[in-house]
């Protein structure tokens, strides 16, 4: 029987949403597989999450050790390599922790590796079929993964339907004693919080958001004029911040701000999942992009294929004339 283990990420004693998504992912791998949640950490936060997971999973493994209090991937990896059966399927989120943990774990467990899986299409013999994306979401691919000696995989948050939790009545197995030697050559020091900027884009109902399509720092003015006309605020995708054209506090996405506007104007943004991961609350999304195949058009409500450098000034003028 296929054995699947899901690593539960959490913050301040609350599991991330993906804890409710792993069960759907596991079913798509193998309807009859056993599924076990794995929670590592220390103290009250750990106990709280373990307790919550018994409502979602029938089996929960708890690993309590002071060295695991902060999830340092180099330490957690050592513990997991001792606890997870080497031929099992191990799932973790494709987030900044999963990206840190999982590739190395697949080496330590001598398992196959697949990253950022968005769908599974079942097992045939010892071959698992999965779907992932490449090139910033521009194309998808089917993958075959040989699971004969196990597999480690990261799954994209939000890609599998969340299950209803609460009543699984799961049992807890304490494997703290099996964690083994947790010494590591990487030591966690502290978290430095992101700087607060001069504008709070999370408070605005309308965002004019610019991406790499703005092409040049001088062109940002064009977006600012549109934002003024719409009584909106300018936000952006990551490359604009990387180029230091706007402050980090204006960045929308998983490594930036989570926004919940009513209207989101995506101007020259391709629509990567890391960007869209910061757009919540089901806003009305308008996408303007000169590439008719840009992935953003699959999630936008309204799309326009035009050059934003021509389109934005004309839209601004038309709005100002109203």
């Amino acid at each position: 029987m296929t054995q699947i283990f899901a690593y539960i990420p959490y913050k301040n004693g609350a599991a991330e949403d993906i804890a409710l998504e792993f069960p759907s992912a596991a079913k798509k791998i193998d309807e009859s597989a056993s599924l076990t949640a794995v929670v590592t950490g220390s103290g009250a936060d750990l106990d709280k999450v373990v307790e919550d997971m018994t409502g979602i999973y029938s089996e929960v493994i708890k690993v309590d050790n002071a060295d695991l209090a902060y999830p340092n991937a180099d330490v957690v990896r050592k513990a997991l390599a001792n606890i997870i059966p080497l031929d099992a399927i191990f799932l973790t989120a494709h987030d900044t922790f999963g990206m840190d943990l999982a590739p190395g774990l697949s080496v330590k467990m001598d398992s196959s590796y697949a990253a950022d899986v968005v769908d599974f299409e079942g097992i045939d013999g010892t071959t698992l079929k999965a779907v992932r994306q490449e090139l910033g979401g521009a194309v998808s691919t089917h993958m075959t993964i040989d699971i004969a000696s196990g597999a480690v995989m990261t799954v994209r948050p939000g890609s599998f339907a969340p299950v209803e939790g609460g009543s699984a009545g799961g049992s807890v197995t304490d494997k703290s004693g099996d964690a083994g030697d947790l010494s590591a050559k990487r030591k966690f020091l502290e978290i430095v919080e992101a700087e607060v900027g001069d504008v709070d884009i999370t408070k605005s109902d309308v965002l004019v958001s610019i991406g790499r399509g703005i092409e040049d720092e001088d062109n940002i003015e064009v977006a600012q004029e549109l934002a003024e006309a719409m009584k909106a605020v300018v936000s952006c995708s990551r490359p604009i911040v990387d180029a230091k054209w706007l402050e980090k506090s204006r960045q929308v996405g998983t490594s930036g701000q989570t926004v919940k506007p009513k209207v989101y104007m995506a101007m020259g943004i391709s629509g990567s999942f890391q960007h869209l991961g910061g757009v919540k609350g089901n806003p009305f999304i308008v996408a303007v992009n000169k590439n008719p195949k840009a992935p953003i058009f699959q999630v936008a409500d309204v799309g326009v294929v035009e050059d934003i450098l021509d389109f934005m000034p004309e839209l601004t003028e038309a709005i100002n004339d109203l």
Partner: protein
Amino acid sequence: MEILVCVKRVPDTAENEFELNGAGNDLDRDDLVYSVNEWDNYAVEEAIQIVDKVGGNVTVVTVGDDESEEVLRREMAMGANNGILLSDDAFEGSDGKGIAAILKAEIEKGSYDLIMTGAQADEGAGQVGGMLAAMLDMPYASLVNKIEVGDSKITVGREIEGGNQEMNEMQLPCVLSIQTGINEPRYVGIRGIRKVAKLDIPVKSASDLGVEGVGDAGAKTKRVDYFVPDLGDGAEMLEGSTDEIIEKLIEKLKAKGGL
């Protein structure tokens, strides 16, 4: 400090509209514009800045074909001292582990204090750095957006959710994957590339490296095909003249609270 940076030649997502080939099993690669992976550029810049401060050498390495030489030269024009091309028909079809195994063989021939990769490349997997570290038994940190070099240790910041930064102390040698935004990569023009055009870039084969079991036959994870998903209806595309489009858009924005 001896620093090795692993780089990759990739289709440029900003420059291309991707189409599938006739058989649907690959991209139509005939007219694709390639460049160095965006993340790798930041890694090379960071390596150069470290060496400028504390001394040493930056070596750039790639697993690829003849055409991959151009990305090595580009990074050498930025200031990397050496380039190495790992190339062999036997490498074709390698999965992430195959690529990591090839790089590991080369790394073990040298003596590096710091090994860097980009946080991810065209496949969006972000796997080679973490695999390399595990194969070499070195500490690893991904998504690094700050590095401070000390004596036998370095302090690194990792970018985590919400743009917060996780600070770690790492012992050397170690492997880091570099996130965009850590620095501002310097510009290289045609002249810069011309200057390094004559520099020797050694090419190493599977037998030079002594690696086996990589390539398609050794790959446990394989791409079967490419496809463009049909995600339902998608956006309602506004068509017509720009004036007509703007008129329709304004009506919609008014209805949805955008104006």
